Every structure is written in structure tokens, then in C-alpha cells.
């Protein structure tokens, strides 16, 4: 995945700064709470929501089970419709393919529709290295690109910025990239949107190469689907002569009809709308309408490794709606950057350590970036049991074990830094299987209760830095029980 995230500190460390940044906390709180209530209302309008969710889950599971078959089918259909299909085993290969395709057109700039896949591969940086300038055209992506920033949300990559910050970025940076921000630009969202419209218009109208991802690809027809709001997607998908779409292999649905589920669940889950303003669907190329050349790059980059994991593969059902981010209390306080990946939030916490492995400090800490409250699972429109996968990945971190990396079976070693915890867990397991020892410990704790402080030194500060310890009672329950029941049940 993108090099920008290598060498990230662990999640707790990265989250610490965010938690204590009042502006960021305020921005995230405002945005996530706004969308949470709206989503709940949009979903409540459909009284068959649970059935749509189950159907979406089943369609995706079925697709994943026969992914090889559907990939071949989509390749055939796209080719028959005039497109060219390329396969990329990893990010580097995808970037290479795209750079070569752009260079073959003789162009040195491209316009981009917001795409998670190309963020994941770090395409912009790769193109830059080849002398090709990639212009992000989604408003939030534009804010991130102009601000020299990193995305912090799947749907709204600039969610960490408020309107005032966005105005400042537009004022200071737009001129460097093209048309400057209008004189006297204020921070009203409508004016900011207008500034983006003016800034990008010239780029759209002259663009010869567009780059996109896709929300869905239909295997039986070879149709690609891009769901968007602003019209920047339509611009990039229809005005250029060449269109290159980089799409993760898990984005397939088998049939045209399957879209009837996702076109209902995706908009309501992501922007909380009955339908997003614009959805484009295209099948290969069409004479006289839109790009004359269409390339589809099918991207693996860790997806097949994820597919090999019985528990973890459900993460590949994800349709990138970001409902789980918006509802997550940890995301709300830690912000997206702490996840060290283009996929933040609960879905990122299960996706990044699978796509990239659990080798780095950040990836080994992500499965723990959750209180397992389950709010993410509840809102997920394809019923990914994120808590289940988190716990599964925690096992992989502390126990190691069999996994697949770059297509090869490996046996992972337990991650470093868990030795003390492992010893404590073993000791606790031993005590809990030896009630005599447990009871002796409980009694010792109770008898020395006057000596227990309400705060702890050293590593104990992780608890007592912000919370008092509970008072220890005079006797554990079992002693009271035995004393008052006089051994009525004490035989065991």
C-alpha cells in the first residue's frame, strides 16, 4: 500500500495527539453526529432494510466464493464491449500499468475521480515520479491535495477540516495549482463549492485522460458503476478520450439485477440520501459518447491473501460506504490519520492488517483500536461482523499462526511486545482453573484493602491516569455466600 503510511506509530500513540486536539475533536464530532442521525432516518424509510442487508451479504459472499469465475467473466464482457483489461498483482504493478498507459497517450496530466484503490496504491505519487500530474477532482480530495494533507475518511477524506480551514487552504493554495480562489472567499459551504467548481472547470474541459475506480463491476454485462455527488465523476468519466479505471477484484457483482440491492443500500448508508446525485454506468466504450479508449486494471494487492482467511474474508464484502466510521466512537475521537492507512475506522482496522499484514507497529495495533462495542456491525449494509474479525486478527497478532502473504502460505510469529500480556493471560487462566488459588488471591486482596491506592504508578497509569480504581470490598462474594449459607453449596 501507499508508502506515505510506512513507519507510522502505533494506533494508541497516534490517537493521543488527536484526542487532545480540541479543533479536530470538534470537527469530527460535528460531522459524524450530523451524518449518524441522517443515516438512521434514511435507513428507517425502508422497512425491508434487514432483508436488503442480508441479500447484499449473500450476493457478496457468493461472488467471493466464485471470484475466479466472475473475474474471467468480467474480463470477457469488458473486452467484448471494447475495453482492455489489465491485471495487477500489487500496487507497484498497478501504478506501472497506469503510468505506461498515460505515457502512451502523450499526456502529462490526468484528472481523477475519487478512488480508494488508487489511494491505496499511491498512484498520484507514482505518476508524479514519472512526470505526470494527477489532479484530484472530488472536493474533499481536492482539499486534501491542496493542503498537502492525508485523507482521514473513506467518503469525506477532509472530514478533519472545518469550513474555516478549507477556506484558508483554498485561499493560499489554489493559485499554485491553477485558477486561484475568488477574491473575498468566505467560509460558507456554497461559496467553497463554487470556488472548487471554478478552479477545476478548466482542468475538466481540457483533460484527455481520466482515472477512476468503481463502486461495482457487473460480471455478466461488463458494466462499471461509479456512484458520486458532485459531477466531477461524470466529468472524468465522459469528457476525456482515454479512461483508466483501477478496481479492486472484490468489487464484482455477478448480475445486473444485483445492483438493485446495492443501489438502495449504498447511498443511504454513506451520504444518508435516498439516492446520490449522480451514478454513472458504462460498458466498455460507446461510439460517439464518452472515452474512445477504456482500460480496466484489476487490482489484487493483498485481496487474495484476505480471501484465503476463513474469518477475515468477510472484509471483502465492504462497499466502502463508511457508515462504520461515522458511527464509531473510537474513530470519532482518534480521527482517521491515527489508523495509518487510506482505510481508517473500523473497516480499516480489519482491512489494513489483512491487505498489508500485521508486521508493522501500526498494523499490529489496529485490531486493538476498538472497544468491540459492535456499533459498526449494526450499521454495516453488508453485515460484516467487524468485532469478530478484530478479535480474530488480535489472535493473529498475539499467537501468530498460518496466514497467506503475497499468495504464499506462511506461519506468522507472534508479534513482539506482547510477552508480559501473554504471561499475565496464562497466569489468569491458571488461577481461573484453580479456584483455590483464585480464592486465596481474592482474600489477600480483600484483607489488604486498606493499603490499595486509588491510583497506580508505572504501567498502571494506563488505567488510573484518568480513572480511579474501585474500592476493594471487605470480602469477596463467595466468602459471604459460604459464611451465610453455611456451606449449603460449599461442597463443590
Amino acid at each position, binding site marked *: 500500500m501507499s508508502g506515505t503510511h510506512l513507519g507510522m506509530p502505533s494506533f494508541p500513540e497516534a490517537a493521543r495527539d488527536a484526542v487532545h486536539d480540541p479543533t479536530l475533536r470538534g470537527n469530527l464530532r460535528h460531522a459524524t453526529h450530523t451524518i449518524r442521525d441522517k443515516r438512521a432516518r434514511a435507513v428507517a424509510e425502508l422497512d425491508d432494510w434487514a432483508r436488503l442487508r442480508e441479500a447484499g451479504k449473500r450476493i457478496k459472499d457468493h461472488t467471493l466464493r466464485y471470484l475466479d469465475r466472475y473475474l474471467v467473466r468480467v474480463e470477457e464482457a469488458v473486452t467484448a464491449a471494447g475495453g482492455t483489461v489489465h491485471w495487477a498483482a500489487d500496487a507497484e504493478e498497478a501504478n506501472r500499468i497506469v503510468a505506461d498507459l498515460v505515457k502512451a497517450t502523450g499526456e502529462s496530466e490526468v484528472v481523477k475521480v475519487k478512488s480508494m484503490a488508487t489511494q491505496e496504491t499511491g498512484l498520484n505519487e507514482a505518476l508524479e515520479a514519472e512526470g505526470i500530474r494527477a489532479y484530484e477532482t472530488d472536493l474533499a480530495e481536492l482539499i486534501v491535495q491542496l493542503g498537502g494533507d492525508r485523507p482521514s475518511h473513506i467518503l469525506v477524506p477532509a472530514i478533519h477540516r472545518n469550513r474555516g480551514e478549507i477556506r484558508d487552504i483554498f485561499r493560499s493554495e489554489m493559485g499554485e495549482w491553477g485558477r486561484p480562489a475568488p477574491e473575498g472567499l468566505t467560509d460558507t459551504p456554497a461559496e467553497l463549492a463554487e470556488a472548487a467548481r471554478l478552479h477545476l472547470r478548466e482542468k475538466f474541459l481540457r483533460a484527455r485522460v481520466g482515472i477512476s475506480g468503481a463502486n461495482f463491476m457487473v460480471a455478466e454485462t461488463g458494466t462499471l458503476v461509479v456512484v458520486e455527488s458532485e459531477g466531477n465523476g461524470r466529468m472524468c468519466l465522459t469528457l476525456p478520450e482515454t479512461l483508466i479505471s483501477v478496481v479492486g477484484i472484490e468489487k464484482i457483482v455477478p448480475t445486473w439485477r444485483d445492483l438493485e440491492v446495492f443501489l438502495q443500500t449504498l447511498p443511504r448508508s454513506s451520504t444518508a440520501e435516498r439516492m446520490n446525485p449522480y451514478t454513472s454506468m458504462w460498458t466498455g466504450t460507446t461510439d460517439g459518447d464518452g472515452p474512445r479508449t477504456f482500460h480496466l486494471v484489476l487490482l489484487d494487492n493483498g485481496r487474495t491473501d484476505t480471501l484465503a482467511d476463513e474469518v477475515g474474508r468477510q472484509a471483502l464484502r465492504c462497499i466502502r460506504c463508511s457508515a462504520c466510521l461515522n458511527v464509531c466512537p473510537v474513530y470519532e475521537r482518534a480521527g482517521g490519520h491515527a489508523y495509518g492507512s487510506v482505510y481508517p475506522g473500523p473497516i480499516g482496522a480489519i482491512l489494513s492488517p489483512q491487505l498489508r499484514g500485521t508486521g508493522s507497529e501500526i498494523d499490529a495495533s489496529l485490531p486493538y483500536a476498538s472497544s468491540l462495542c459492535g456499533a459498526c456491525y449494526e450499521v454495516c449494509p453488508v453485515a460484516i461482523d467487524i468485532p469478530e474479525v478484530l478479535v480474530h486478527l488480535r489472535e493473529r497478532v498475539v499467537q501468530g499462526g498460518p496466514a497467506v502473504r503475497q499468495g504464499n502460505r506462511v506461519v506468522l510469529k507472534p508479534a513482539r511486545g506482547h510477552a508480559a500480556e501473554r504471561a499475565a493471560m496464562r497466569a489468569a487462566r491458571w488461577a481461573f*482453573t484453580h479456584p483455590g488459588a483464585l480464592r486465596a488471591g481474592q482474600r489477600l486482596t480483600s484483607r489488604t484493602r486498606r493499603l490499595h491506592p486509588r491510583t497506580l504508578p508505572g504501567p498502571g497509569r494506563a*488505567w488510573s491516569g484518568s480513572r480511579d480504581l*474501585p474500592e476493594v470490598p471487605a470480602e469477596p462474594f463467595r466468602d459471604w455466600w459460604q459464611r451465610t449459607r453455611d456451606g449449603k453449596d460449599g461442597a463443590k
Partner: protein
Amino acid sequence: MRVALFLTCVNDTLYPDTGRAVVQLLTRLGVEVDFPMAQTCCGQAHYNTGYRHEAEPLARRFSEVFAEYETVVTPSGSCGAMVRELYPRMGERARAEGRGGALAATLAPVVPKTYELTEFLVDVLGVTDVGAYYPHTVTYHPTCHGLRSLGLGDRPRRLLEAVKGLELVELPGAEECCGFGGTFAVKNPDVSAAMGADKVRNAESTGAEVLCAADNSCLMHIGGTMTRLRTGMRPVHIAEILAGTEEAVTV
């Protein structure tokens, strides 16, 4: 009717009052309560931290200890969810690891007969008015595993609404996690504390004297945050509210 009380290791060691309240409440409702002394821990902390294999002996032990009882009642949403939701999963995982169906078979019998306390009261005993008296203003925090894994729904609220003298006030953002999350509380202390502080501020805004929940581990975190922030509010387990009567007011 006779039930086994699975108190949980946290309650046994740190919150014996909750255990006494459950015994008092169920006895008052005509239920005979046993406390099998061999019980220890359901293994939730192990399991959720990634030590599933360390949790297995604890789960097996749980099944053996409670084998002879028809009904097991626990005053903890998360430990109840561990048994009901995660024991079957542990069995499946063992099978997937090529270890056969032995673990699944051992654990299966306790799964359907284990009830969280409010579930037992409302669904099994069929009561919502347990004859309790509690003259305080209370706000209720639905803990995550009770709410989402067990689907306790409005059962705790219905029980609280029927308590004489109790004024129930709505907790803003009630369904948001308090930030405890087991080992999450120490592995991600900053985020956990921020969530706890927000929960406590929301609770404080209600003007209630008491924040009530059906899980003492969450209350340990919320209560510890309350005293640190000097709010003057108290965390109280729902069993202790439901056990109170006019004759013997629980404080």
C-alpha cells in the same frame, strides 16, 4: 424454580454487593438461587484480547460447573454475551482448526440456558414490576454487549420504570460505548478516557444522582471517571436498584 448464579469474576472479587442484590431479588421473587463455588471466569477477557486458546479451558470449566442446572443467571451483559454468542463461535473455530467437534459439544448445552439478569426477569419470570423501591433520579446506560450482542432492548428500562420512587431520565447518546472495552481501556487509554469523560458529561447533564447499567465492568470505568472528574454521581448496578424495597432501602 432453581437457578445457578454465575456472578462473574469481576463481581465476585470487586462487587459482592451486586451478587447479594441478585440473591435478594431472586429470592424475593420465589426463585431458589445456588452459587456453585467452583465457578470462576467465562474467559471473555482472554478471548477478546486474542487469547482464544487460553479461554478454552475456562469455557470448558464453565460448562462443567453449570452442567447440572437448568438455568444460569448472570448480572453481566458482556459475560452473558460471551457464553451465548462467543462459546458457539469458539466451538466452530476449534472445528475449523481440525480439532473436531469436542469443544463445540461441551459448550453447546450451557448456551441456551444462560440468561442475563434482566432477560431472565422479563422473559423467564415474566415480571417487570419486581416490587422495588428506589427513591432517586436515575439515568440508564445500555452497555454495548447487552444492547447489541444479547439484544436486551427495552427490558432494563421496563424494569426501572416499574420501580417505585425512581425517576428515570433520558441519557443523551445513551447507546454510545462508554469506552471501557476490557483491555481496550488500558491498551488505548487516551481514547478510552475520552469516551468515558463524554459518557460522564452526558450523564451529568441529566441531573440524575445515579447512572445505572447492567454491567459492573463498564460501571467500574464510568465510576472511576466520575470520581476523577468529581461529579458527585454514583454508578449503581441495576440489580442493586431492583433489590431495594421500602423496608430496606438500598443506598
